[in-house]
């Protein structure tokens, strides 16, 4: 992998969140406020895989989305190292955040957001083509990764909308790993996979760590977590929601 002028800082940090608060305000539910977490600090360095842990509903997925930039923190900073510079994901210009996601910050979501009509092979090759890799080479790498993840070759030319849950997840994993970004966020990447394919994903994660990627993941499967995580980051239970006083409703 070649990321041009990337010069990682000496401490190897790739992703950092500081003073992170998240409160959802539901304007159409009488302004109810759902606090998720407050004052959260997280730093992730190259070669680390941090497993987010805590009870269901404690905000693991919310934190992941704040780290990717599709949730806005109520206060605090999320910064990713992009081409040698720290980029604030929430105050940075949209085009810089898009560029950072292409080059520096990958995300394997739990579910595939299907794009109508786009064949599986193109979907997986797309992140590479967006980095300027030529069609042939991007397609070859996509084929290799789909093969490794045991996605049957007869499916490669079809859009994944009608695939089984496990097949869709493996397409999603392939799409998430192919560009080999220096930071990867993994939201339950093995949730609907059988034993054999779970092991393939574990190997992909270990390989990413070995090449110096910084990873943050949610792994409900304890075996997977033990195999891939270098440490855990525990989130406490979310505080109770607060309602506006009746005078304001």
């Amino acid at each position, binding site marked *: 992998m070649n990321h041009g002028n990337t010069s990682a800082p000496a401490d190897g940090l790739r992703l950092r969140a500081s003073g992170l608060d998240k409160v959802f305000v539901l304007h159409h539910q009488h302004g109810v406020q759902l606090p998720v977490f407050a004052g959260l600090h997280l730093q992730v360095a190259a070669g680390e895989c941090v497993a987010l842990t805590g009870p269901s509903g404690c905000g693991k997925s919310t934190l992941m989305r704040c780290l990717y930039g599709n949730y806005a923190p109520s206060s605090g900073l999320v910064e990713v190292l992009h081409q040698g510079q720290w980029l604030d994901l929430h105050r940075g210009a*949209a085009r810089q955040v898009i560029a950072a996601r292409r080059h520096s910050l990958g995300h394997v979501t739990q579910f595939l957001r299907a794009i109508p009509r786009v064949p599986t092979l193109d979907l997986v090759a797309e992140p590479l083509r967006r980095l300027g890799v030529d069609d042939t080479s991007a397609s070859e790498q996509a084929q290799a990764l789909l093969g490794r993840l045991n996605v049957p070759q007869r499916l490669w030319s079809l859009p994944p909308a009608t695939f089984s849950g496990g097949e869709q997840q493996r397409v999603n994993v392939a799409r998430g790993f192919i560009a080999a970004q220096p930071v990867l966020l993994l939201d339950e990447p093995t949730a609907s996979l059988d034993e054999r394919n779970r092991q393939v994903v574990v190997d992909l994660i270990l390989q990413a760590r070995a090449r110096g990627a910084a990873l943050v993941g949610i792994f409900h499967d304890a075996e997977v977590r033990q195999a891939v995580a270098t440490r855990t980051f525990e989130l406490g239970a979310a505080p109770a929601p607060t309602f506006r006083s009746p005078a304001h409703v």
Partner: protein
Amino acid sequence: MTDDRLLSVQGVGKHYGARWACRDVSFDLWPGEVLAIVGESGSGKSTLLNLLSLRTPMDEGAVHYALRADGNTPGGLHNLATLSEARQRLLARTDWGFVEQNPRDGLRMAVSAGANVAERLMVLGQEHYGRLRCQALDWMQRVELDGHRIDERPTQFSGGMQQRLQIARNLVTRPRLVFMDEPTSGLDVSVQARLLDLLRSLTENLGLACIVVTHDLAVARLLAQRMLVMKDGSVVEAGLTDRVLDDPQHPYTQLLVSSVLTP
């Protein structure tokens, strides 16, 4: 740092009588960016599109656009209001595109498909019949139209084919900025998906900047990196498309997002 903005919109507004159809809209657009403007009917989004594309004169504010350098004008951002009408027209016909919701409004229905595609090239002074026809064929194929139908009139095409023909007609001069007004909403759902996929690959492969007006949040999600949400003529929320749709902040955006039926 050099200023590489393609379009800069500052405080743009338009009123009809005492009512402001849209007001105080400001944003910048960079080359290759796709921006969606969403909102319900009457929110002012189509008025805004018409102001930006110089189809309707604005009552306040200014739009600057990065002109291509030529013999008479240096490149870089120019206030569009300072350009002559002839220059504005040329800009709209060459460096811009405008895809109408109803393809009949954007096509000449009485001339052939090929002539529709080639018209903008003729505006630029190309006269060689063979070369014009060749480029028209090339663009028909790029939008997945059967080249054998180059001599047919658009009236013989289906709605989805007409929309693809309109897109080819707009892209033939390699514009850098394309305005689209609800480009898929007049079409059957099955045809919409195909057109969206085509638009998505064309904008990416050609590095087109686009401003797409749509009431359909799924269209915004698929095509645009950024979006503006409009209500009563004002922008109430702006940001990365997935941030606005996944974690809407403004009450109106929350209402829009929570009102969508997901099959």
